[in-house]
């Protein structure tokens, strides 16, 4: 029973991270900060949802599958965000806030 409650709490916490990611992707000012929002939802949000589901899983294989799901997503997300950031940097090395900071003398 306590495990059920803990699992539900973890899954709800994961959904909160997905909310933060979705709002961040819409509201943050440039690509690099949006990537930041994306990785939070990917890694922590899905991690918490998978952990909550794995805690209340009916079988060991289901729990292992959820762990594998998270591992695959984390590695894919790390690769994808690195590629997107590197490509954007290559095309426009000084954009958005980085350029603003440089103009201000902080960069």
């Amino acid at each position, binding site marked *: 029973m306590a495990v059920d409650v803990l699992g539900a709490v973890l899954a709800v916490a994961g959904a909160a991270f997905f909310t933060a990611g*979705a709002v961040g992707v*819409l509201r943050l000012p440039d690509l690099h900060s949006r990537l930041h929002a994306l990785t939070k939802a990917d890694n922590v*949000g899905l991690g918490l949802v998978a952990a909550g589901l794995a805690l209340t899983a009916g079988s060991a294989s289901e729990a292992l599958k959820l762990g594998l799901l998270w591992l695959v997503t984390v590695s894919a997300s790390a690769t994808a965000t690195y590629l*997107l950031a590197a490509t*954007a940097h290559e095309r426009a090395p000084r954009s958005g806030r980085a350029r603003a900071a440089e103009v201000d003398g902080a960069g």
Partner: protein
Amino acid sequence: MSAVALGLAGYLLVTLVPVALRALRGPTTADRVLAVTLAGTTGIAALALIGRATGVGALLDVALVLAVLAAVPVVVYTTRVVDRS
């Protein structure tokens, strides 16, 4: 747990609305690709939750396949951009 899972899955689908707005607005293609990536991850979580709520274990396998394929669009986009320049 299954009622909670179903509710959360529905809620996650609602969070796709701001993500879709970003995908529509851009402004760059990279922003759109980023939004699609987040939509994919949200879909993975929603599939796992729906699988638990309905007791259809195969949906977890669907989520796994989606997770494996999620990296492909980004790789295709970045390699095409690098090739063009």
